[in-house]
């Protein structure tokens, strides 16, 4: 079966626009599409937020295929996968990708299982791509993908019709296309969607309390690790986070010890953060923690150990006890605020 010149991106929406990871995935897709003279198409399941089509257009999406069906009202990975399969059958894209969000990874896993194709999760880079017609009609990619929490890259072949993968968060910065595309919105009929696909749907959802700040979207994160010393010693860190309009994050050992709740964990098994600044206090910087914070724009480490990975990898550091340094920072901020 011959392939069209299409790179298909499954995008996710938020109330106020397309998700940042989705715009990154579209940017990433443009890079892949350019290697083969292909177009980028988007797949949206459900409503498009106001301005969503314009955002996709400015990022280079030629066509947005939109699946609208009452049965899709509640999130369901198998149902979303069914829509991706319908889009694949209709468009015959050379490549189909999603951002490596929890939803993106699970939906693409379903797609791979259904189409009996390989799926490469957490791809950071496409080293080479042959999207044109080959003897077998497959797209052939060579990719780097994250293993060991991102500490190691796996170089692997990805062959398929289409080639399926998810893009590692922040593999690229999202940038508008050189010239905006049309982004015509076309309806996609979810013809393959069956009752069996809807069994594992969300039955009830409880929105997160507005006071609970979303770590993964925080612009400022103040982090505390084992060096904090105990559950009742986080006050100055919490105060600093509040002063800076940020959110408290913690390392895995802090949650394992039960000092702070799991939803504050930054790391491979917690949240991946992308703040403008990450103030990492008393955190040694184990690989699985680095997997969660390596995309921070500026890292300031406070640690007694100048050789700690968190310190050597940081942009700035203060060597010393956080219980002296953090109160001093709070005091300095207070005094500058007064003047």
């Amino acid at each position, binding site marked *: 079966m011959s392939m069209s010149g299409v790179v298909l991106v499954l995008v996710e929406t938020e109330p106020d626009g397309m998700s940042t990871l989705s715009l990154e995935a579209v940017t990433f897709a443009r890079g892949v599409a350019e290697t083969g003279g292909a177009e980028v198409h988007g797949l949206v399941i459900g409503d498009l937020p106001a301005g969503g089509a314009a955002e996709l257009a400015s990022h280079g999406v030629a066509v947005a295929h939109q699946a609208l069906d009452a049965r899709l009202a509640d999130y369901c990975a198998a149902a979303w996968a069914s829509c991706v399969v319908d889009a694949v059958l209709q468009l015959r894209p050379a490549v189909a990708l999603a951002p490596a969000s929890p939803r993106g990874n699970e939906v693409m*896993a379903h797609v791979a299982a259904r189409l009996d194709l390989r799926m490469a999760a957490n791809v950071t880079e496409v080293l080479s791509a042959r999207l044109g017609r080959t003897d077998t009609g497959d797209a052939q990619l060579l990719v780097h993908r994250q293993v060991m929490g991102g500490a190691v890259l796996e170089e692997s072949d990805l062959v398929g019709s289409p080639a399926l993968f998810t893009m590692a968060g922040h593999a690229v910065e999202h940038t508008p296309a050189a010239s905006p595309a049309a982004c015509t919105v076309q309806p996609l009929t979810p013809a393959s969607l069956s009752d069996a696909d809807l069994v594992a749907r969300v039955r009830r959802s409880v929105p997160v309390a507005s006071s609970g700040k979303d770590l993964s979207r925080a612009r400022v994160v103040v982090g505390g690790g084992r060096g904090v010393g105990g559950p009742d010693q986080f006050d100055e860190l919490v105060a600093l986070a509040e002063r800076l309009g940020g959110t408290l994050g913690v390392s895995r050992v802090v949650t394992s010890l039960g000092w702070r709740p*799991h939803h504050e964990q930054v790391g491979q098994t917690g949240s991946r953060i992308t703040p403008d600044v990450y103030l990492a206090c008393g955190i040694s910087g184990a690989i699985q923690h680095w997997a969660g914070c390596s995309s921070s724009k500026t890292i300031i480490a406070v640690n007694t150990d100048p050789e700690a990975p968190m310190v050597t990898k940081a942009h700035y550091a203060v060597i010393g006890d956080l219980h002296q*340094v953090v109160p001093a920072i709070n005091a300095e901020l207070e005094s*500058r605020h007064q003047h």
Partner: protein
Amino acid sequence: MSNVLVCIKRVPASSGQVLLTDDVMSVDARHVGHTLSPHEECAIEAAVQIAGDTGGAATVLTLGPDSAVDQLREALAVGASSAVHLHTPETGEPGSADEYGPADVAEAIASVVRRRAEGGEPFDLVVLGNDAADTGDFQVGVRLAHLLGRPVVTGARSLSVAGDVVTVIGDGPGGTEEFELPLPCVVTVKEGDISPRYPSIPGRLKAKKAPVEAIDAPPAAQGTARRRLVLPPEQPSTVQVLGTDKDATSAAAAVVDVLRTIGVVAR
């Protein structure tokens, strides 16, 4: 009564620097040792709790070399009552676990589930970790569910069984999400809300004697398509030390200057 199969993986422990084998095809874990993949302690706990609550039994399974029995014994020590070892050669030898892609692992697990069902001892619920800390494919649970024709939910923070229904709670982009699945089904678990119990001394003694069914893992039909592993280039440290706690005030002032330059603090 729910019989539960929990699938676990022996992975290299990672805290500091990762080393690769000479052929750059695997992680060299000789100096750091191995551990259970992080989400799986919670998966084991969920399996043991559900088996206990429903009067069923929890069986633990792994695909790996001889040494993977260590991880099976950890699960047996906290309440799994039996184990299945899909045995593979050692890392570096042909046919090792590193050569199994997610489709192969799913097929191997499916073969055990099917065999048990044919033998009249079906697993109502199969629980796995959300993703393995080393390979990070995020696929085995979903592929297994497709092979078995079962519904699946991934990323569960907690789960419980009442009658024939599994209630699963997970995180969505906007908040908490709740699912209900009919048995038989597959659930993958993320650490967070389930607190794994610690093994007791009697538990550890029991684990040494618990039955482990050892089977040669079926060969990997698909493989991984891995060409090699690459360590990201070691970046030399460019950290600027702003001060020490010997003069915390001055260090703090330098930090706030940086925050102002970035724009986090107003001028």
